[in-house]
């Protein structure tokens, strides 16, 4: 399983804080991104960063391993 995590404005727009999806071998970040944009066209407008297992990831070619946590994140506004 892969867990998609949403916070703040992204969570509000998606209407959920986490979604679990089936893992399929050969999964890359870019595929998850595209799927997310297709499923949540409103939410994706907020997204500025993606983190894979708590580390920011910019490369769509990153291979996603089973059990990963992918966070789609808006610009940070803490502090």
């Amino acid at each position, binding site marked *: 399983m892969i867990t998609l995590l949403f916070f703040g404005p992204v969570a509000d727009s998606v209407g959920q804080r986490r979604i679990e999806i089936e893992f399929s071998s050969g999964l890359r970040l870019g595929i998850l991104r595209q799927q997310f944009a297709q499923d949540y066209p409103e939410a994706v407008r907020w997204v500025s960063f993606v983190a894979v297992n708590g580390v920011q990831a910019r490369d769509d070619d990153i291979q996603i391993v089973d059990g990963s946590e992918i966070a789609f*994140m808006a610009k940070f506004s803490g502090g």
Partner: protein
Amino acid sequence: MKAPVRIQEEDFSQDDEIAALKLVSVRMGGIATFLGCARDFSEGREVSAISFDAYDSMALAEMNALRDEAIKRFGLIDARLVHRVGTVHGGDNIVFIAAGAEHRAEAFDACRWMIDTLKERVPIWKKEITPTGDAWVVPHP
């Protein structure tokens, strides 16, 4: 003793944080701190409350990395960072950063760098609750 880096709902005490910071060494001559507070007004709008959401595990890791980097980069003796989540009201504490060094210049530089960099790197989001509705804050680039 509370951890030097924390994300928490409850308020914190500057006296307690400073006491914990000082325990590290009596060679600390200067401590610079920054306290961010909730304002009742933001860019022309009245704000009733501010609500914070965080990606806790990543935010904590980033704040710990910030502390390590600040200590190394500015030669600090120690540093502490606390950020609240949940809902706060006008005048309430939001974030506290303390930098302790032998001399004041490093303490000031490090404290300022930590709050500036926290805003850039730490996954926390702020929603302003106003009489006319709620709005997530989008930082200016």
